């Protein structure tokens, strides 16, 4: 499980870096720098595999997935830029499999298992609770100091 631990460590730290980055630069600039980070890895991956032999459908699906992933990156950076706490936004957006399950149910005719239904219910409840911010009480008006 060392590799899984490595993934947890890097992805967990990444959530912190996203917030630290959006504290300094705009969400759109973050998208570009993050993409550069991804591009750095491509030559190494290219040595291990090739795209030869892939169907046009698979290539299209992969490219579209990359595009919507980029838009998702922009949205999370915009959320952090607009004041979301990393400790709220990262767990909240990690609930995206909920959306995938719904899309797969609608378009791939997959049927969620009873366990997945439980996961969907927990995701909805967890998402609602994560986004809860107690109402802010207005600041008390300054009262004139009365000299007695």
């Amino acid at each position, binding site marked *: 499980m060392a590799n899984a631990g490595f993934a947890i460590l890097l992805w967990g730290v990444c959530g912190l870096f996203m917030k630290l980055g959006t504290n300094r630069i705009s969400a759109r600039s973050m998208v570009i720098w993050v993409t550069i980070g*991804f591009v750095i890895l491509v030559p190494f991956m290219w040595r291990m595999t090739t795209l030869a032999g892939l169907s046009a459908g698979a290539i299209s699906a992969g490219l579209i997935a990359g595009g919507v992933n980029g838009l998702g990156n922009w949205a999370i950076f915009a959320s952090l830029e607009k004041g979301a706490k990393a400790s709220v936004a990262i767990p909240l957006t990690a609930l995206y499999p909920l959306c995938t399950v719904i899309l797969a149910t609608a378009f791939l005719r997959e049927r969620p298992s009873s366990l997945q239904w439980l996961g969907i219910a927990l995701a909805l409840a967890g998402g609602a609770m994560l986004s809860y911010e107690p109402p802010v009480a207005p600041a008390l008006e300054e009262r004139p100091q009365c000299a007695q």
Partner: protein
Amino acid sequence: MQTEPRRFPVWLWYALLCVFWWGLWGFFSKIGSVSANPLQLQILFTLGMLPVAFGMLVQMRGRLDHNPGGAAFGMLSGLFTGLGALGYFAALRQQDASVVTPVTGLFPLLTVVLAFIVLRERLNKVQMGGIVLALASIVILSI
């Protein structure tokens, strides 16, 4: 005591938009993974991200923020996400996805701990309960 009417915060709209886009990413990845291996998909994801990044650059009229700290954190975010994915794929070669995916899905817990220590973020009790439910849901949905 009177309180301000509750408004839907802007950050939450963006977070939900992110859930939608990443949900679509999961959907198209599912379609692509029928014939492409994880590494091939990772390369395609990167290529697919390029037009989005280019579109952002055009929107900014080429004025990319060069704050060294921000750029470094941004690049490291991309690098760490990609390297983390490679670690995840390597783990999949040794263990079943039904074990690896739910375990790696717990990564937000580390972010929460780091944000508590480094950024001094504090959550209310409802949000803490939300994190527990969200993590449980991530594990269940990734089995």
